[in-house]
């Protein structure tokens, strides 16, 4: 499977793939859509390991590598269980892949990577990149990223993506050889376009605004949630003190001793239960974070639209001004200001030959200009069409995923309540024996 490097990896037809991981609701969405790599190949980020080595400036550094495993889908369903192909990648390589995709598919809402540094932490959670919990959550996030790309209608068939999954050595060089970095739009250029564009597509303007709002509200939610988690941790842990004091108190009491002692154990259990509860909530936070970063990807597409539209407008404007110049030259009237025009007025008219030459040049420029405008217009239309398709796809995915996330949050809360009911009922029984 790993050596069929055909350009079109097309699997037509519906394969009934049911997700096996209850945690990863995404797989539901992803597998349902049309052509995608995921239908042919199982992809996972199985492990993480620490490595030390010399970096670019020849200093020792410690970093983490992630094991990417791939296996053809058919093999698994046939009952045989071949060893998966695997290779190790580090986070910076994922970043490189994503940057390549961003530049190469500007009309796609490119799936985001898990965060580079831990943010929105609450006190128990470590902000250290080397912390095993952080590494584990990052592993899951990276797998998520690969699965999302592999199920994207456009991105999944990309060769560079494929070799990222299958060719350990030389991949970096291959990416650089594509010259994608040169195609990247400079920040300044993009910013300029945002300010100066006159007629962006309304839908994209709205989408961009939506992206801003989404980012703002999810950030706020993550912050508030982290603070609440911190406090909840405190509440549960203080109950552990009940356990200690009940135990000490039971030592001086005769009839009450047993009841107190056993109640104390339940208080300890209650205090300990918060660790699992909050770990589950971190999954929920990670789901929110994914869409926080997706908002950025969405806005990037909208900005690209502004850029293409702006460039079209610039070309059109340029054409119009050239046409006007031609008109003026032909009729002799000067409506547009030009230094040449002023100087010729001051210092004498041009010769007819000069005028002829100028006219000819303008004609050529106008021809070229019209070609450019046609080109840019086509580009713009093409972009709008493709981008809007992907945006619609993204919207559906987002609505589905976030709804699932809210449902799983509710399930978590229910589970937490059930645990609480159990503990306090147990405690009550013990108290009755006091």
């Amino acid at each position: 499977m790993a050596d069929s490097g055909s350009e079109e990896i097309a699997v037509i037809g519906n394969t009934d793939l049911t997700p096996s991981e209850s945690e990863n609701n995404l797989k539901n969405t992803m597998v349902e859509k049309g052509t995608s790599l995921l239908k042919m190949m199982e992809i996972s980020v199985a492990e993480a390991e620490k490595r030390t080595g010399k970096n670019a400036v020849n200093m020792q550094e410690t970093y983490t590598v992630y094991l990417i495993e791939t296996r053809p889908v058919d093999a698994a369903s046939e009952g045989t269980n071949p060893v998966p192909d695997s290779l190790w990648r580090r986070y910076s390589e994922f970043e490189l892949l994503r940057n390549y995709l961003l530049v190469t598919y500007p009309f796609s809402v490119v799936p985001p990577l898990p965060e580079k540094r831990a943010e929105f932490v609450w006190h128990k959670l470590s902000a250290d990149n080397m912390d095993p919990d952080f590494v584990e959550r990052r592993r899951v996030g990276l797998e998520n990223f690969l699965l999302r790309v592999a199920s994207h209608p456009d991105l999944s068939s990309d060769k560079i993506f494929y070799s990222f999954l299958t060719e350990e050595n030389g991949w970096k060089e291959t990416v650089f050889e594509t010259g994608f970095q040169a195609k990247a739009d400079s920040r300044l250029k993009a910013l300029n376009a945002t300010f100066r564009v006159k007629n962006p597509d309304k839908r994209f303007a709205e989408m961009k605004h939506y992206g801003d709002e989404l980012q703002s509200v999810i950030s706020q939610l993550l912050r508030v949630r982290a603070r609440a988690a911190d406090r909840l941790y405190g509440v549960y842990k203080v109950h552990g003190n009940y356990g200690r004091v009940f135990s000490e108190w039971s030592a001086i009491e005769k009839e009450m001793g047993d009841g107190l002692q056993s109640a104390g154990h339940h208080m300890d259990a209650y205090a300990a239960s918060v660790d699992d509860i909050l770990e589950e909530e971190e999954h929920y936070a990670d789901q929110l974070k994914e869409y926080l970063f997706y908002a950025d990807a969405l806005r990037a597409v909208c900005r690209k639209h502004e850029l293409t539209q702006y460039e079209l407008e610039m070309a059109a404007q340029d054409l119009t001004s050239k046409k006007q110049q031609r008109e003026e030259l032909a009729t002799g009237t000067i409506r547009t200001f030009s230094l040449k025009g002023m100087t010729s007025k001051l210092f004498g008219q041009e010769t007819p030959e000069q005028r002829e030459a100028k006219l000819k040049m303008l004609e050529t420029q106008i021809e070229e200009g019209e070609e450019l405008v046609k080109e840019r217009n086509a580009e713009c239309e093409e972009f709008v069409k493709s981008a809007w398709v992907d945006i619609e796809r993204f919207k559906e995915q987002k609505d589905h995923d976030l709804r699932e996330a809210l449902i799983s949050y509710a399930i978590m809360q229910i589970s937490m309540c059930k645990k609480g009911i159990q503990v306090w009922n147990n405690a009550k029984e013990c108290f009755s024996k006091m």
Partner: protein
Amino acid sequence: MLRLLSQQLRLNERDLHDTSTTQTDGSSFNASMQTSPASMINQYKFEEEEEDADTKDIFVTVDNPESHVTAIETYITYRVETKTTRSEFDSSEFEVRRRYQDFLWLKGRLEEAHPTLIVHPLPEKFVMKGMVERFNEDFIETRRRALHKFLNKIAEHPIFSSSEDFKIFLTAGSGELTSHKKQGPGFLSRMGETVKAVAAAVRGVRNRPQEFTDMQEYAEAFSQKISSLDKVTQRIVREQKEYLEELKECGPTYALWSQSEQELAEPLKNVAGCVDNCCKETEEQVKHLNDHLIPVLHEYVLCADTLKAVLRRRDNIQADFEGKTEALATKKADRDAMRDELDKAEDRLEWANNALKTDWTRWQKVMRTDLRSAFIDTAERNVSYYEKCLAVWESFLQSQRTDAEGNGNVDSS
């Protein structure tokens, strides 16, 4: 039988007012008593059947705080209502108004009359740290509840409830009460008692029986544990309140988000509502802790202090007896008078010891009942809290399921 005993004891209290006794801290013993306290103690048994609610024949409530302003001070009075079928009361219903000072007076009288019995504590005299105004609503309500408990504990106590002072407290008009208060042992005799008490305390007890040492150790340990529980509970309340503050911001954030969404608007609004409901439940739960568990724990912190005080007083009575024993052994003059005093002191000691032992056992039972029911109550409240939150989230899940079915998005799972 208890009636007979309580009548005898009332006799004691009247004798107290004669100031003809000289004792260390005003024990109610009187030389003119016919029966020896030892024989009476044998009759001082607790018959638990007589104590249950069905045979309760006196009901006291404390409510309706009112503020009074005079030129010199502002103070609060509380309405004290009594309903009783006891024959020693002239009527079956009484309503009087009492201020905190009056409660203090009653407590003092009971302690004077029965130095080695355990009087339930009163709420503290002065405000706790952190409170600005002495008369804010919460403080008054907390105090009212504690005063109510105090009187009920007195009413439930087999000895105290027959106290004449208690009866006067419940029934006398304010003028009558004031004049009754003045009848107590005079200032000088009280000073004399205090001096003797200090002397006894300084002398210290020599041969304290092991059982009282055990009680002392228990009182120390109990005091520590109950104080810890009080502190832990207060900390829980603080943490819960801080959690609540953060949680209060979650709902509105979900609501804000729903405004940017279309398909997601409804579930987000729903979640916002759920979070807000959980906030309300959390608020109620904290309030319950504050209003129920904390006051009980606090009462027993004060009780622990009472236990230690009672043991000290018993020690002083013993020290007094030991002192008099020594005096008899060494002095030559006045032997008859001294022997007389020694006998009195011995009887007083026996009385005190037995009273303490019996009341100690009683107190332990009451403590156990009170704390057990307070903790059970708290556990039940917590269960109820989680049940309510559970219902909130389950209704959300339900709404999402029916929603999915309505839109025809059901996966055949």
